[in-house]
């Protein structure tokens, strides 16, 4: 009796497995490997869809981007609130990795390591990645943060309850709770300037053009040109956030 029962259930198991595999094969023929492909889908609307490009090789670490951002967006001046900041990565010959960002880079950088000890060093400007599949907007319990139709992740500061779920959800550390307004705050890609046709403050002031922004739908635009001419990578691609901030020259040490 016992053996018979086992073989029966084994047969049922094989039948179910075969049916599942068959169904998967058929469905993947209909829509090839959709589940496996990590892509960022464009929303189906009109108008611009903003993307950002940062060229690490062009960044000279002057910190003017971080400085102008604080002034433009009235970010609290305490040294731990930033919408945008610059980090200096230093890899020494003995393999130690040092990452510094004194006051977000606002006052510039001074290297203390002796030059002969340095294997490699570079600046990494950071800001909101304006993800197409942003983890931060998905966790908001009240709908106070959202992706705008033109692909900018914004905050509704009148509606935010300051629960800080989004702050811990952002894998790039781009959000903070505003100490006076008690609501979440973050880079808006200077939405108020974008709408007037002006560049965001950090990009307006960048002396080398290391930061650029552009319409990802404009096939002759500056962003598509940037993506064509450089080998770009996003931060933490494994998280599949659909980041629209593309870095040129992203070294493997950068997190």
């Amino acid at each position: 009796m016992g053996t018979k029962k086992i073989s029966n259930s084994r047969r049922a198991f094989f039948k179910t497995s075969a049916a599942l595999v068959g169904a998967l094969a058929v469905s993947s023929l209909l829509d090839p490997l959709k589940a496996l492909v990590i892509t960022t889908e464009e929303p189906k609307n009109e108008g611009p869809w903003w993307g950002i490009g940062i060229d690490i090789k062009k960044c000279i670490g002057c910190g003017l981007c971080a400085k102008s951002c604080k002034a433009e967006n009235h970010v609290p001046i305490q040294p731990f609130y930033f919408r945008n900041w610059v980090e200096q990565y230093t890899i020494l010959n003995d393999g130690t990795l040092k990452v510094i960002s004194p006051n977000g880079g606002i006052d510039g950088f001074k290297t203390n390591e002796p030059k002969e000890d340095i294997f490699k060093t570079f600046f990494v400007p950071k800001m909101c990645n304006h993800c197409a599949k942003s983890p931060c907007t998905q966790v908001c319990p009240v709908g106070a943060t959202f992706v705008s139709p033109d692909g900018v992740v914004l905050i509704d500061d009148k509606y935010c309850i300051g629960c800080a779920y989004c702050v811990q959800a952002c894998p790039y550390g781009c959000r903070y709770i505003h100490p006076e307004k008690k609501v979440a705050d973050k880079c808006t890609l200077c939405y108020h300037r974008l709408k007037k046709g002006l560049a965001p403050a950090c990009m307006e002031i960048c002396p080398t053009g290391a930061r650029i922004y552009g319409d990802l739908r404009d096939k002759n635009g500056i962003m598509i040109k940037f993506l064509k001419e450089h080998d770009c990578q996003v931060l933490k691609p494994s998280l599949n956030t659909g980041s629209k901030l593309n870095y040129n020259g992203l070294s493997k040490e950068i997190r």
Partner: protein
Amino acid sequence: MPPQLKVLLPLFAIIVVVFVVIRHFLVPVSFGENGHYRANSLIDNANKEMVYASKKMCVECHADIGEKLQSDLHASLSCVVCHGPGLEHSNSPKTVQIIKMSGRDHCGRCHAINPARLKEAVNQIDVVEHHKDKKDCIECHNPHAVWELKK
């Protein structure tokens, strides 16, 4: 109709009505027009006040300087790099003076030697030792045309 329903149905109807009324007052205006957020928040975000001017605004009046800048190494610089936000000056040029930032600290932000700066990206100099007898960089260098050295 079962007798229980006679009591429960009106009760149920009252609950639905109360829910709809409360919902009407709790959901803010324009919520859900574009998605799960207040569509008017887009307008709020777009109406925030600017602080920084843009190069476009500056060259509307200062076309001569803009042209000069364009022909030299500082061509990629926006005026706000050395002149500060400048929007107030742009709005009322007669009453608000533009600021001029210079000196070894300000110029050194970009031009001080740092191993993380690529030589191709920016010219670097020892900003402390370079021509120690002079106080300010702009005593010799014209910031709008850096290689046009003053005597």
